[in-house]
């Protein structure tokens, strides 16, 4: 993993070349013949090594956006370009984590991580030490031979994270990866993810409906409107790294959170009466 040198907390350089270009991407479905606009045209870039969170209400199309970027579903209009390559089929130089851990119940923890290697036809023996080291980094050593059904939800999601990282992809796509976890496990996972990201500085697109999670992890937060989803605002998060949980109570953090919340309130999403 190559660590790009960047002073922690420095403002995002505008000159950084985009790694992912999302240009006017749109998605419409036709359930029962009725056109349903899931996503209005979306345009933004992800810089190399940038961590971008997308926060939005349920059903705003943020998961759809991730599927479009991954090339798992076709766009209705617009295009996704990753490193100059237009995405028309699943993009494979990537690690993907979904809310459901998506582990294979019949494979052990280690074999689940190495699934990445098996499917790609790479040399298992070469990657096994990497897989074991990654599992150790997230505190799962000693469980390599367990089946996913024998692990807790948090542990399963850690295994899924290791699987997304074992082949050292430059891009990580995460769709509410911690959404199904309890609050405490979730805090720990967010810290672990930050640590891994600081070590490797991969480009990350992180989907969440949690405002604090989005701010805590990201260089930039993209706030989305309710369906049909479009970009409501973009926040540059200028907080020093590594960020600590205590920073959630800091005034600066509070201002970012308030900005996102007010956006949601403007959409009539949060009613206090």
């Amino acid at each position: 993993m190559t660590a790009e040198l960047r002073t922690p907390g420095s403002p995002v350089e505008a000159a950084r070349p985009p790694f992912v270009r999302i240009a006017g991407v749109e998605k419409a479905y036709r359930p029962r013949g009725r056109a349903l606009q899931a996503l209005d045209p979306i345009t933004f870039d992800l810089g190399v090594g940038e961590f971008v969170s997308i926060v939005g209400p349920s059903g705003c199309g943020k998961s759809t956006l991730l599927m479009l970027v991954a090339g798992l579903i076709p766009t209705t209009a617009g295009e996704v370009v990753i490193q100059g390559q237009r995405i028309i089929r699943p993009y494979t130089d990537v690690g993907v984590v979904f809310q459901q851990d998506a582990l294979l119940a019949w494979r052990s923890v280690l074999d689940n991580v190495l699934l990445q290697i098996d499917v790609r036809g790479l040399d298992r023996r070469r990657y096994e030490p990497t897989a074991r080291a990654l599992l150790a980094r997230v505190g799962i050593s000693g469980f390599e031979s367990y089946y996913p059904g024998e692990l807790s939800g948090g542990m399963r999601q850690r295994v899924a994270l290791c699987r997304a990282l074992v082949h050292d992809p430059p891009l990580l796509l995460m769709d509410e990866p911690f959404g199904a976890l309890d609050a405490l496990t979730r805090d720990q996972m967010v810290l672990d993810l930050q640590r891994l990201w600081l070590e490797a500085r991969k480009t990350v697109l992180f989907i969440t409906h949690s405002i604090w999670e989005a701010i805590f992890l990201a260089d930039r937060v993209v706030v989305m409107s309710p369906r049909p989803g479009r970009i409501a605002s973009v926040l540059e998060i200028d907080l020093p790294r590594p960020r600590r949980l205590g920073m959630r109570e800091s005034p600066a953090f509070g201002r970012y959170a308030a900005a996102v919340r007010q956006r949601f309130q403007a959409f009539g999403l949060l009613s206090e009466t």
Partner: protein
Amino acid sequence: MSAERPDALTDADTEALPSAGARLAPYLYPALTLAGLVVAWEAFTKLTAVSRLLLPAPSDIAATLVSALPLLVHMSAITAAEFLLGFGLSVVVGIPLGALLVHARPVELAVYPLLVASQTVPKAAIAPIFVVWLGAGMTSKVLIAFTIAFFPIVIDTAIGLRAAPPEVINVVRSMGANAFQVFWFVRFPNALPNIFGGLKVASTLAVVGAIVGEFVSAEKGLGYLVLVANGELNTTLVFASVVTLSVLGVGFYFLLELVERFVIRWHVSARRPETGTM
């Protein structure tokens, strides 16, 4: 199942099975029930002096099982060969056909409705046709067993293949998997619990099929023996044949269970803490 668990389960066995007594209970209770029934049956025949032609005592049946053992073993081997071959054919045809139903839309459209409709035809009624076509030898029995047994395998395979979680398929596609790899890495292993369910149903149906075939026309086999003994009013031998047949059928079923436990260990182990009795 364990989202709220703070850590991994220590050991499924020690958690789910507190004592040897509890471990044996699933075997002990049916065995005791069976023993009770046999004792009641024995007592009934002794107390009422019912004719042995109508209802032989269990002790008489046991005696015949011993005295006619060579004959029963010989006939068992033939019947077993019939249903095992019929079952094997069901597997070899049923699993690929189930996969085709899921992956080849034209096959699904062309075959599936006919397949379902064909199941309403009473197969015992078409058994004589197989005998006319293929003679009274083993081939007709094998094909009758196959005709009866393959359907649940097809259906359960299709259900299992369709049940693969879409997010798993998406993760694997992001690894660059082609359709065959998605099948091989995800769909097929995911379908194994369903497939084994179908196999177990098919195993009992294959036995039925072989016996139906022998009833129609045969010169050997346990079904043939039942017919002959019945014709000679040797009711004890009829019962002895039926007992032998049950032992064969149950043995085959448990053999499949053993294979299942070995092949899909992960499934059984994941299920055990919930059911507590596997």
